[in-house]
């Protein structure tokens, strides 16, 4: 084909940012990191790869780029920060007292279909709150997510909160086989009541629990959904407890002025399989996909030998950049014009450039052709 060169081809899933694009991303990252720092989180720069079994989990394992190391061990490029941070908290940081507040900003790599600003290499900015009182930590993390969006200047965004304990409570102890459970979860996530009914046929799960699972598909909207949920789920103690936990967090956020930014979505049971409690996703007008999300994972650290509850969230830098662009709110990053310096006497010109730089002026240095 015209204009192609074998070596100029790029593999699917990679991208590169130049000039203004790169400046915007850097600015977005600075804003988000300053919010994380403002809530007294410490930066952690974890390794780019680790043993592959750190990242096992049904959702991530098939998306992981793994390879065999020189010593024969299977290694993987990090597909996710959370597992890595859990491991580090249980290992290198084992003597640190909980709660620990850690944040990160960097790339993860996943085999994933390219979609809406999400390539195989994604830049995630996120934090983890490890240990500590659970409801306070949940509320804090949601408040930090909200502040990030405020500081970024995004508009018409929503935090959609749910709790995986509701779905899990309803199916607990019923003995559904794994395949049926997956099909059921998938239909609940799609808010498809007819599909939920169909996937429960002949499962042995019936009566109040079956009716509640079907109702779950419609339990999404304003925070008043929780009142309805408390009534419908009263018969199932674990699910009712989950609703109470969620309500405690929602009430705190409402009291803190975030009532208009909250949506409740009890059919929101997707996400990575390590979530055990609160889950949330951030949506905004102008972008059909979530901008970020997070949740509580109380069993993950136990896998690494330090049982500790935790909650975290992340924003996708690519998604944030795309959203701000669509909303006409991309950060203004045009630098001041540079002073052109150069000329015949190279030494004198360089001395002048250094002087200008010492006073903070942006310079463009060149041997005459820049004038």
């Amino acid at each position, binding site marked *: 084909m015209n204009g192609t060169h074998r070596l100029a081809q790029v593999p699917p899933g990679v991208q590169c940012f130049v000039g203004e694009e790169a400046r915007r991303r850097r600015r977005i990252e600075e804003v988000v990191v300053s919010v994380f720092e403002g809530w007294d989180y410490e930066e952690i720069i974890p390794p780019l790869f680790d043993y592959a079994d750190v990242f096992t989990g049904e959702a991530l394992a098939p998306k992981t780029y793994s390879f065999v190391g020189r010593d024969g061990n299977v290694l993987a490029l990090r597909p996710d920060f959370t597992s890595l941070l859990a491991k580090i908290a249980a290992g290198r940081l084992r003597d640190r007292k909980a709660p620990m507040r850690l944040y990160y900003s960097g790339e993860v790599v996943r085999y994933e279909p390219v979609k*809406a600003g999400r390539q195989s290499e994604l830049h995630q900015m996120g934090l983890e709150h490890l240990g500590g009182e659970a409801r306070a930590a949940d509320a804090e993390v949601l408040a930090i997510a909200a502040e990030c969006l405020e500081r970024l200047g995004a508009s*018409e*965004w*929503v935090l*959609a909160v749910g709790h995986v304990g509701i779905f899990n409570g309803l199916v607990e102890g019923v003995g559904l086989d794994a395949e049926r459970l997956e099909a059921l979860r998938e239909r609940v996530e*799609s*808010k*498809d*009541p*007819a*599909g939920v009914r169909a996937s429960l046929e002949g499962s042995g799960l019936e009566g109040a629990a079956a009716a509640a699972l079907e109702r779950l*598909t*419609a339990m*999404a*909207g*304003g925070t008043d959904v929780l009142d309805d949920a408390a009534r419908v789920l009263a018969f199932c103690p674990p699910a009712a407890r989950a609703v109470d936990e969620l309500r405690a967090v929602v009430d705190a956020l409402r009291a803190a002025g975030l009532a208009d930014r909250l*949506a409740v*979505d009890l059919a929101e049971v997707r996400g990575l399989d390590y979530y055990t409690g609160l889950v949330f*996703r951030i*949506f*905004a*007008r*102008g*972008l*059909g*996909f*979530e901008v970020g999300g997070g949740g509580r994972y109380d069993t993950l650290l136990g896998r690494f030998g330090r049982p500790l509850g935790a909650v975290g969230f992340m924003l996708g830098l690519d998604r944030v950049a795309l959203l701000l662009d669509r909303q006409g709110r991309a950060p203004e990053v045009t630098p001041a014009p540079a002073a052109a310096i150069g000329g015949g006497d190279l030494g004198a010109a360089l001395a002048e450039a250094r002087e200008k730089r010492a006073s903070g002026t942006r310079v463009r240095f060149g041997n005459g052709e820049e004038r």
Partner: protein
Amino acid sequence: MSLTVALSKGKLLAGSEALFRRAGLPFPDGEGRRLVVEAGSLRFLFVKDMDVPTYVEYGVADCGVAGRDVLLETGADVLEPLDLGFGRCRLVVASPAGSGFAPHRAATTRVASKYAKVAAGHFLGRGLAVEVVRLAGSVEIAPGLGLADCIVDVVETGRTLAENGLEVIETVAESSARLIVNRASFHARRDEVQRLVETLRRTSR
């Protein structure tokens, strides 16, 4: 800004129009060739049936009407709050009538289909090797001409199958028209979306 609704130009169009009119919702008049049409409080996109889920998944359309068959094939991550009840059909495996064809007797089954993903998933999921021949249409003639052993396709009455000497071996999935909603629109434009869903729910009941 008005909500955007993606509709199929294909077989679900008549049912969608009837539903919207019955519900008292705006719908574009006339047989125009325009593919993006404003009508009252809604904006309509008329696209290929296989593309409806994509427009909705990306949020270019807030809502859409798509067959369950198409949703299975595209695997689009969208909400499906309503079974609209029309456009009922079945996705089936069909092979030449009287041929006694049975997939588990062949080392590899050759399947012709527009639904390549559904077809592959159906056989592979049961531990059967499969070679999918992807076609864009007229799938029914493939077995007779030796292109494939069987087909995976939608049937409503079964007449087209019979006319081409095929019979249904098994059902892969039942299908009907679904109202689909973008995940972000569902929350970011909650009031408008909920109103539309409720209006259509009352009408399609």
